[in-house]
C-alpha cells in the first residue's frame, strides 16, 4: 500500500517536472536557457528574484490560509463575536522592515547589472593602428525587416545577423521609420530602436548556432510597429571567430557584384530590371537601403522573415507580399511580373550565396 502510494507520488512529481521542463521553451528562442553572458546574468537575476518572491508568496499564503481556516464562521458558530482589535505597532514594524530588507537585497544585483549592461565604453577603444578593438554592428529597424551594418568591416546584410562567439558584440540601434525593439531572447534582453537617437548596448554570444534545431537563434521585434509587428522576425547565426572572419572576407569579396539587365538568365535580367533599385546583391556597403540586402539570401533560413526557405515561398511572396506581411513597403514597387519571371527571379535569388 505504502509502496503504491510512493510510486504514485513519484509519478505525479515526474508529471509536474515534465510540464515544468516543457515550460522552458525552445533552445533558440527561450530566455530560460540563455547562451550568452548577458542573458545568463539576467537569468540568474530572474532566479534570485523568483526565490525571494516565492518566499514572500509562501509566507503570505500560509498566514492567509491559516487565518481563514481558523476564522470560518461555519466553525465558530453564527453568534461568535470576535474581539475588535485596533492594530499592532510591533506587527506593522515587522512587515515594513522585513520587506525593506528583502528589497535592499534585490536592489544590489539590480544596480550592479544595470550599470554593467550600460557600459559601452569599449565601443570606442582603438588599438595601436587606430582600428576599433570591439566588433560593432549598426542595427537599423525598418518596417518589418532588419538591416545589419558592420562599419569597421565595410559590409552590410539584412534579416540574418552574423556574429562571432566569445566576445562582446556592441550594437548601435536605430529605427528608420517607427519605433521597434531589438530582442534576441536566448542571448539577452532587448533594447528599443528609437527614431530620434541611437541606443547602444552589448550582447555576448557563447554558443555557436550550428547545433540548434535550425542552425540559428531567433530574434524578435518587441515593440508594436504596425500590422506586421508579429512577423518582424530576424535570425542570428553565431560562428566561431575563424568562421566569422571567413564570412566577413567572403562578404567583402562580393564588392561590385550586381545583376545585369543584359544577362541571358531571365531571373537575373528580371531582378536587374525590377528589384535591384531596392535590393543590393553585393555585401559591401553601408546601411540605408530601401529593401533588405540579398547577397547571402541562399544561406538564410526564412523568406521574408517568416516563410519557409523555398523557391515556392519566394514566388508566393513576390506575387502578393501584402497577403503575407500586411503593411509592408514592397507591395506595388516593382510593377507586374509574369509567373515565369517570378519563378526565374526566385531561382536567381536562391542562388545568391557566399557559403560553399
Amino acid at each position, binding site marked *: 500500500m505504502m509502496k503504491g502510494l510512493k510510486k504514485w507520488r513519484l509519478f505525479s512529481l515526474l508529471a509536474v517536472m515534465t510540464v515544468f521542463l516543457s515550460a522552458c521553451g525552445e533552445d533558440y528562442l527561450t530566455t530560460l536557457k540563455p547562451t550568452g553572458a548577458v542573458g545568463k546574468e*539576467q537569468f540568474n537575476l530572474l532566479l534570485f528574484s523568483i526565490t525571494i518572491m516565492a518566499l514572500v508568496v509562501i509566507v503570505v499564503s500560509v498566514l492567509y490560509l491559516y487565518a481563514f481556516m481558523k476564522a470560518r464562521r461555519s466553525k465558530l458558530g453564527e453568534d461568535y463575536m470576535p474581539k475588535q482589535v*485596533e492594530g499592532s505597532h510591533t*506587527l506593522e514594524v515587522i512587515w515594513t522592515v522585513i520587506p525593506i530588507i528583502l528589497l535592499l537585497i534585490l536592489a544590489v544585483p539590480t544596480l550592479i547589472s544595470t550599470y554593467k549592461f550600460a557600459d559601452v565604453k569599449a565601443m570606442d577603444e582603438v588599438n595601436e593602428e587606430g582600428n576599433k578593438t570591439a566588433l560593432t554592428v549598426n542595427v537599423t529597424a525598418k518596417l518589418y525587416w532588419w538591416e545589419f551594418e558592420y562599419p569597421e568591416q565595410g559590409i552590410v546584410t539584412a534579416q540574418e545577423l552574423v556574429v562571432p562567439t566569445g566576445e562582446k558584440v556592441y550594437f548601435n540601434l536605430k529605427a528608420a521609420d517607427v519605433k521597434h525593439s531589438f530582442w534576441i531572447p536566448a542571448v539577452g534582453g532587448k533594447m528599443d530602436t528609437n527614431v530620434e537617437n541611437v541606443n547602444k548596448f552589448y550582447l555576448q554570444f557563447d554558443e555557436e548556432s550550428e547545433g540548434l534545431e535550425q542552425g540559428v537563434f531567433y530574434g524578435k521585434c518587441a515593440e508594436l510597429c504596425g500590422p506586421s509587428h508579429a512577423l518582424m*522576425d530576424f535570425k542570428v547565426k553565431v560562428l566561431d571567430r575563424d568562421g566569422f572572419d571567413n564570412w566577413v572576407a567572403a562578404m567583402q569579396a562580393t564588392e561590385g557584384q550586381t545583376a545585369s539587365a543584359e544577362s541571358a538568365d531571365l531571373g537575373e535580367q528580371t531582378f536587374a530590371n525590377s528589384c535591384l533599385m531596392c535590393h543590393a546583391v553585393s555585401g559591401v556597403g553601408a546601411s540605408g537601403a530601401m529593401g533588405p540586402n540579398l547577397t547571402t539570401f541562399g544561406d538564410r533560413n526564412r523568406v521574408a522573415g517568416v516563410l519557409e526557405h523555398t523557391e515556392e515561398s519566394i514566388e508566393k511572396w513576390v506575387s502578393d507580399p501584402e497577403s503575407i506581411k500586411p503593411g509592408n513597403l514592397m507591395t506595388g514597387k516593382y510593377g507586374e511580373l509574369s509567373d515565369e519571371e517570378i519563378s526565374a527571379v526566385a531561382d536567381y535569388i536562391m542562388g545568391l550565396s557566399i557559403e560553399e
Partner: protein
Amino acid sequence: MSSAAVSNKKGFGATLWDYLTTVDHKKLGVMYLFAGTLFFAIAGLEALLMRIQLMIPNSDFVSAGTFNELLTMHGTTMLFLAATPLLFGFMNAVVPLQIGARDVAFPFLNSLGFWLFFLGALFLHLSFFLGGAPDAGWTNYASLALYSPGHGIDFYVLGLQISGAGTLISGINFIVTIITMRAPGMTFMRMPLFTWTSLISSALILFAFPPLTVGLFLMLVDRMFEANFFDHTMGGNTVIWEHLFWIFGHPEVYILVLPAFGLFSEIIPVFARKRLFGYSSMVFATILIGFLGFMVWAHHMFTTGLGATANAIFAVATMAIAVPTGMKVFNWIMTIWGGSVKVTVPMLYALGFIPSFVAGGVTGVMQAAAPLDYQLHDSYFIVAHFHYVIVGGIVTAIFGSMHFYWPIMFNRALSEKLGVLTFWIFFTGFHLTFFLQHFLGLMGMPRRVFTYQANQGWDLFNFISSIGAIMMAIGVILLVINIIITAKSKPLNCRDYWGDGRSLEWAIQTPVPFYNFKQTPLVRGYDPYWLEKHDGNEEGMVYAEPLGDIHMPNNSILPLIMSIGTFIAAFGALYHPDGKAWAIPVLILGLAITVGAMIVRSVKDDLGFHVHVEEVIATEEHLYGKGGNK
C-alpha cells in the same frame, strides 16, 4: 429607481428625462455602473476575439490590422471607459453616504463629468463605423501613431480628451466633497477606508490627467495642423510622448487600484465581523502609494535607453512601492485573523483577490529589477503581470462590490448561488488565461502579436490560455444574467442587509430617499454604525440637527447639452485635416453650443429648492410606512 421620490409611477419619457437631467449622486452612480458595464462587455468581447485568434498558430480569424485595432480598443476601453466609470459608480453611490452627506459638493459638475465621459466614450467607439478604430496600442506611442493612416488615432485623441475632461471634473468634485461635506464628527481619521482611497485616487486624477491632456493636445495639433511636436524629422521627439503618457499612465494604475483596495477594506471587516486591522497604517499606506505612484513612471521605459542612472533610480523607487502595498495585504490578513468569516459572494471575491494580487505584485517587483526587465519588457510576461493586478485586483473588487452594494444601490440583492458559480468560473478562467502567459513571455513571445508561427514552443500554452478566456467570458455572461434576474426580484426594504455593516451607508434604510439623511448624522467614532448598533441605538444614528427643511439642488439638462457640444466639435476637429469645408463651421458650432450652455448656467440663478419638513415626513412614510426611517 431606489431613490424614486413620492411619485412612483412615471411614464417612460419622464423617467428618461429624469435620468438625462439628474444631478443625484445615487442615480449618477447607477448610470456610471451601467455605462461601465456596457464598455466592460465591449472590451471583454474584443479580448475574446483576440484570444480566439491566438488560440492556434497562424490563425486567420481576424486580420493583422483588425487585431491591432482590437488590442488598442481593449486596453483603452478597459482602463478609461470600463474600470474608471465602474469605480466612479461606486464612489458616487457610496462615498456621500459614508460621510453623511446629502449629495456631492458640485452635483451639476457630477452630471457634467458623467456626460463628458459617456459622449467621449461614444465618440471613440464610433471609430469602428467611421473608417477604423485606433491601432497604435493604448499607449499610442508617437512614431507609430503619427504613421497610422486614417482617422483611428484622431478618434483616440479626441475621445480621450473629452472623456478625460469628465474624469478630471469628477475627481475634483470628489476631493471637494470629501474635504468639505463630512458630517459633524466625521474627522479625517474616522473616514471609512473607501472614502480615504477615493480621496487619494481623486487627488491622483487631479495631478495625473493634466499631463495626459497636454500629450493628447500636442498629438492633436500634430495630426490636425502638422505641428511637429513628435515628428523627429522636423525636430520633434517621440520619447517626450512616452514620458507624458507614462507620467499619466502609471498613476492611472493607482487611480484604479486604490479605490479597489478601499472596497476590499470595506468588504473584509464586514464579513470578518471585525474592525479593520491597522486602520491608521492603512491610511498611511494609501497616501504613500499615491505619492510614490508619481515617482516610478520611467519603469515603463527601461528599454527606451534613458541610461543606467535613470534606470537605477526608477528601479529602486518602483521596488519601494511594494512596501506600503505589502502593509495593506498583511493588514487584510490580520483583519481576517481571529475574526468570524462568513463566505458570501463579496467575501469570496475578497478571498480570491488576496493571493491573486500578491502574485501580480511580486511579478511587478521582478520587473522593477531593470536588467531583468530587459528580458521581460514587452513580452507576454508583462501581459500576465498587469492582468494579474488589474483583473485580480480591480475586476474582482468591482464584481465583489456589485454584490456587496447592490442592496443599497437598487434595494435588491444579487443571487448568491449564481454569484458563487460566477466567481468560480471567472476565477478559474482568469488564472488559466494569465498564469501560463508568464511562461510564454519567458519563452520569448513578444506581446501585441496578431499571430505566431507554429512550433516555437508556444502552441500549447496559448491554446490553454484561450480556453481560460472563454471561461472568463462565461463568468461575465452569468453576472449579467444575475443582474437581469435580480431586476425582477422583490425589493428588500431593509437596513444593514449583510447584518454586520459598520459604516454609515448601512445605517440607512433602503430604498435610500433622494435626500439621503433626513437629519445629518452625528459621528461619534470610527465605524459609526457599528458603534451605535452595539450601544443599543436601534436607529443606528444619532443626529446633529433637528428635523428641518432640506436644501437640494435642481436637475438640469445643461450638462448633457455642454457635452453634446464638445461631441459635435470633435467631429469638426476630426475631419478638418481632410480639407472638408464643413469641418471648421461644425467645430465652431459645437464649441458655441458648449459655451452657450456655460453662459446660460452662469447668468441664470439656480439656487436649488427646499424639501419642507412635511414633505420629508410624507416621503419617509411612503417609503418605510408609519414612523419613517426607524
